[in-house]
């Protein structure tokens, strides 16, 4: 049944037990994003640290109200990018965006996207793509702000 291809077990797991959820201090930037089509919201904070000259995603914390897809996506995202350098994380965000825009034609690489590959089915449901991207867009925005402030 198609429902299972959309709501893979991995997604439901992250939805029921989201990782890194809850807003934490301290943070470098906080953003609030909404999905105007359905009203879903996410408040997201990002903390960067600068270890080796390259900024690193030290923490991502968030509070999200929304459907299983948007919640699970935020959870998977934080899982994936915490600890990565900002360029690496931006690369992942691009990769995930590409997957979402693929109309289901792309075979995602689990090596790269980890649990993110479970969202491949979402790409077939245009109305849900914004749900899956909500957290990622918030993170990109928050990170841009944090980098801006560090200048």
């Amino acid at each position, binding site marked *: *049944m*198609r*429902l299972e291809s*959309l*709501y893979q077990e991995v997604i*439901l797991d992250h939805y*029921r037990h989201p990782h890194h959820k809850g807003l934490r201090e301290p943070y470098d930037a906080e953003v609030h994003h909404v999905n105007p*089509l*359905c*009203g*879903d*919201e996410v408040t997201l904070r990002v903390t960067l640290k600068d270890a080796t000259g390259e900024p690193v995603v030290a923490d991502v914390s968030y509070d999200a*109200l*929304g*459907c*299983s*897809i948007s919640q699970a996506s935020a959870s998977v995202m934080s899982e994936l990018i915490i600890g990565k350098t900002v360029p690496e994380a931006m690369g992942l965000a691009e990769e995930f965006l590409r997957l979402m825009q693929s109309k289901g034609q792309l075979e995602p690489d689990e090596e790269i996207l980890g649990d993110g590959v479970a969202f491949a089915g979402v790409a077939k*449901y245009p109305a*849900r793509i914004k*749900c899956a991207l909500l957290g990622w867009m918030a993170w990109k925005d928050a990170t841009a702000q944090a980098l801006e402030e560090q200048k």
Partner: protein
Amino acid sequence: MTLDVARIRKDFPILDRQVRDGQPLVYLDSANTSQKPRQVIERLDDFYERHNANIHRASHQLGEEATAAYEGARIKAAGFIGARDETEVVFTKNISEGINLVAYAMGNATAGQSGGSGSGRFRLGPGDEIVITEMEHHSNIVPWQLLCERTGATLRWFGVTDDGQLDLAQAGDLITERTKLVALAHQSNVLGTINPVREIADRAHAAGALVLVDAAQSVPHMPVDVQGLGADFLGFTSHKMCGPTGIGVLWGRRELLEEMPPFLGGGEMIESVWMDHSTFAPPPHKFEAGTMPIAEAAGLDAAIDYLTDVGLDAVRAHERDLIGYALDALGTVPGLRVLGPADPATRGAAISFTLEDVHPHDISQVLDEHGVAVRAGHHCAWPLHRRYGIQASTRASFYLYNTRAEVDALVDGIGQAQRFFGGD
């Protein structure tokens, strides 16, 4: 006065469709947009295949025929809502434009423009107030916010009670000599609530204010009479009443339309044009700039014929039956909370609900997988959702072509969604 739903369904070609790999379509999203009977589709075809021309301007036979189709639709629409005559009917692209038209006319009056015969009652300034309600569709909120921003007037609103009624206790405080206009929905697109428009209109008029009724959700579903409602303006939108997209109606009392400055400028709305100034046609043409949705007017005419033939009393009765049946059935679902009135007699054919632990987007997705089309989200009524402490809801909405069996399919699908997301 019962509907022959089986026969009606045959008029709607799309109801034969299968979705999601072979599921028969169960369309419960008519409050969003309705489906179209072949009578309407055929009327569009006939217009384009036999009568298409621009209107008013052309002195050839096709031009005459197209003009007759367009102006005939105006007469039809006027009769449908009890207007004094067709000069009170302005065609717009949808009801949103109609509401904006009134808001901009007020803004333009404030900026010193006039409709020819004075426009004093449309002028706004600091101290003046516009009153709306917390259950309005964004299309009846945002235009007034923008207008108030531009003019310095103040926006106020009726709150909503826990059971989805306007809090009329606030009326005395809200409607005062400062009130210039009260704008409210005849029927809420989320709660289904049918508002006591007449009562509020009487109060507004006593205070010297004008009344604009958003009838997007009532005109398609029940007999509506502008005189009985005591409205000064009333809007509705074709696509929700079996008609084509691209056209709506703003009805206004003739003397008001005369006073109001124009909104959009362009061909057809003028009397005479010089490079440095223009004079304007009398209403309704004053408000119809550029080439109008001509074929769409013919389609709306056919839609009104269709609804009139079926009978709006019969439509309303049929929907009341469905609402009663649906409210009962939904009442058996654990964790399900219906927004709005519990009595089918006081509400229209849209039922919005929340379900414990399952997000509306997820419910609607499971339903869609079973062929059941509903809407999930804030339904363009975000403030109303905030009022009830929720982000979003799921809305099933009914029309003349829906059946009890489709309500069963809805309730069934909700059960599936609960099982699917309920596991741990």
